[in-house]
């Protein structure tokens, strides 16, 4: 059994009175790609945001790297955040600066590397997501899929131990999407990265998922491997895989 890197216990998150996550307990494991599945609006993004502390849960604990992960404890929270990369659903690049500068932000803020080295790392990361030619463009000058790839480059700028991706392949063509999947697997294998991904792309799930979590109505309907998911006899989960494949 691999080590658990995130432990969630009895997590409840609500917006106002509307309960989105209801008593979720869940572990994420080191060196694994975990895919979170579920219908649109079921709370996947909310789950990610509750884990990383952008939405404060109404109840429950989240532990990351073996320590409580709580935005209130600022020094610990910030030092843990340096070991975490996050790719937001809409990219969230800073609009006033170029792609290269966006990727350089975490390197400049959190390391003592010199300028040349940072430049070189930035170019490597942009190359890894296939954006070397767009380094000096502004985010508003990119296509939707390019923006997503640039945001991924920024998320992995510090070679984080833990990477969260909210729909990295939405809006990408199958080839680019496959290349990103390969990239994520490479990161997992070579940097021992643990990855938590929200995605709906079946092809992508087949390629990368070590483990699948299926969310429905604020509860975890299923968690396990892909083969288990396909034979789990839970109608919603089976329907998801049946409808999606052709």
């Amino acid at each position, binding site marked *: 059994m691999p*080590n658990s*890197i995130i432990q969630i216990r009895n997590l409840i998150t609500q917006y106002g009175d509307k309960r989105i996550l209801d008593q979720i307990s869940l572990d994420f494991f*080191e060196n694994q790609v975990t895919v979170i599945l579920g219908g649109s609006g079921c709370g996947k993004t909310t789950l990610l945001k509750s884990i990383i502390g952008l939405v404060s849960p109404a109840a429950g604990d989240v532990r990351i*790297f*073996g320590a409580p992960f709580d935005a209130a404890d600022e020094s610990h929270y910030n030092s843990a955040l340096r*070991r975490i990369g996050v790719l937001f659903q809409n990219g969230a690049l800073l*609009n*006033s600066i170029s792609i290269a500068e966006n990727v350089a932000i975490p390197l400049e803020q959190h*390391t*003592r*590397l*010199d300028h*040349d*080295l940072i*430049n*070189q*790392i930035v*170019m*490597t*990361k942009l*190359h*890894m997501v296939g954006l*070397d*030619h767009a*380094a*000096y463009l*502004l*985010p*508003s000058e990119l296509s939707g899929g390019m923006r997503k790839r640039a945001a991924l480059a920024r998320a992995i700028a*510090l*070679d984080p*131990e833990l990477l969260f991706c909210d729909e990295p392949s939405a809006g990408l063509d199958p080839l680019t999407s496959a290349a990103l999947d390969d990239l994520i697997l*490479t990161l997992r294998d*070579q*940097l*021992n990265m643990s990855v938590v991904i929200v995605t709906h792309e079946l092809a992508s799930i087949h390629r990368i998922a070590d483990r699948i979590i299926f969310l429905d109505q604020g509860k975890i309907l299923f968690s396990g491997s892909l083969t288990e998911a396909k034979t789990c006899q839970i109608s919603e989960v089976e329907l998801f895989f049946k409808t999606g494949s052709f």
Partner: protein
Amino acid sequence: MNNMASDNSLKSSRIHCRDSLLILDGPLSIHTIPELQKNLKQTRLDTVTTIDLSGVDYIDSAGVAFLEQLSERTGSAANLQKANEKVQRALETFSSHQNRKPEQSPEPNFFESVGNSVYSFGESALDFLYLTSEIVLWSLYGIFHTGSRRKGSVIQQSFLIGSNAIGIIALLSFVLGLILALQSAAQLRQFGANIYVADLIAISMVREMGPMMTAIIIAGRSGSAFAAEISTMKVTEELDALRMMAINPISYVVVPKFLAITICMPLLVTLSMILGILGGFVIGLTYLDLTFVSYFNETISILTAEDLLVGLSKSIFFAWVIVIIGSYFGFKAQGGAEGVGKVTTSAVVASIFAVIFLDALFSLIYMI
């Protein structure tokens, strides 16, 4: 906690040099490299031909970048040797593929940039004229055809522009009247010409100060709001969406504002005139010992219909300038939220400038 990568941030690495051999030991990661770089400052590298990586157990992208830099600095791009399999694969993944750094497009020289700005000024002037004519045409059309905009949008805009500005305009005009009267009272008193303070306040509030003050406040409040609203719609592609629904963005978005401000401005200016005169009245009654009746009669007798007409007609022009400039900058917005901020500021500055400039122009015209 048995977490390999987190251990790396604690472990340190060593570097030592033996003749042509450079030996690296320990993890090469974002955490260890700044230290290594410092140590390396004292080491001579031009004799190094081989870099021994047998002691390296972990390497990340910063490590690879560091190695590339290192072998560039050595005399003859040194060989990397004895890397274990994992390190070898990382070297391939994170290699930066030298010499493919794209160039930023060169900065234009002085003459080019002067030429460019003249050219773009000409272009924007043309755009501005187009927009102006389009707004005026669609507004005329919109007076009679109410179907091309959202129901009740003119009334809603009138409330936004007018009713929320009433308080501030009333207060500022009153204070302005007060100040004007106080300043001139001291002078007029010396000649025993106390009563003329009424003339002075009446004329200046009605012909100049009322329209101008109101226009400046409206430019700050509503001009900025127009620019912000339209530019937000532009950058979020709402304008494109309207166009694709076969709706003209100008008649849908701008015309209600245009009609609303045309109605509101004269009303607000009238309010400003009255409050300004009231301000003077307070000073006249208290400081200059005038009576209510004499002040009132003097004010009525000095004001002509022409004064009122000048003030109000001016104010309508100011209103139009504010809408047109606000919309122009709104439509010009580019990029994201940042673009919105930029054009909002520009719109306010430009419309206040235009109002004052136009006022000077009117003064000139009326003098002739």
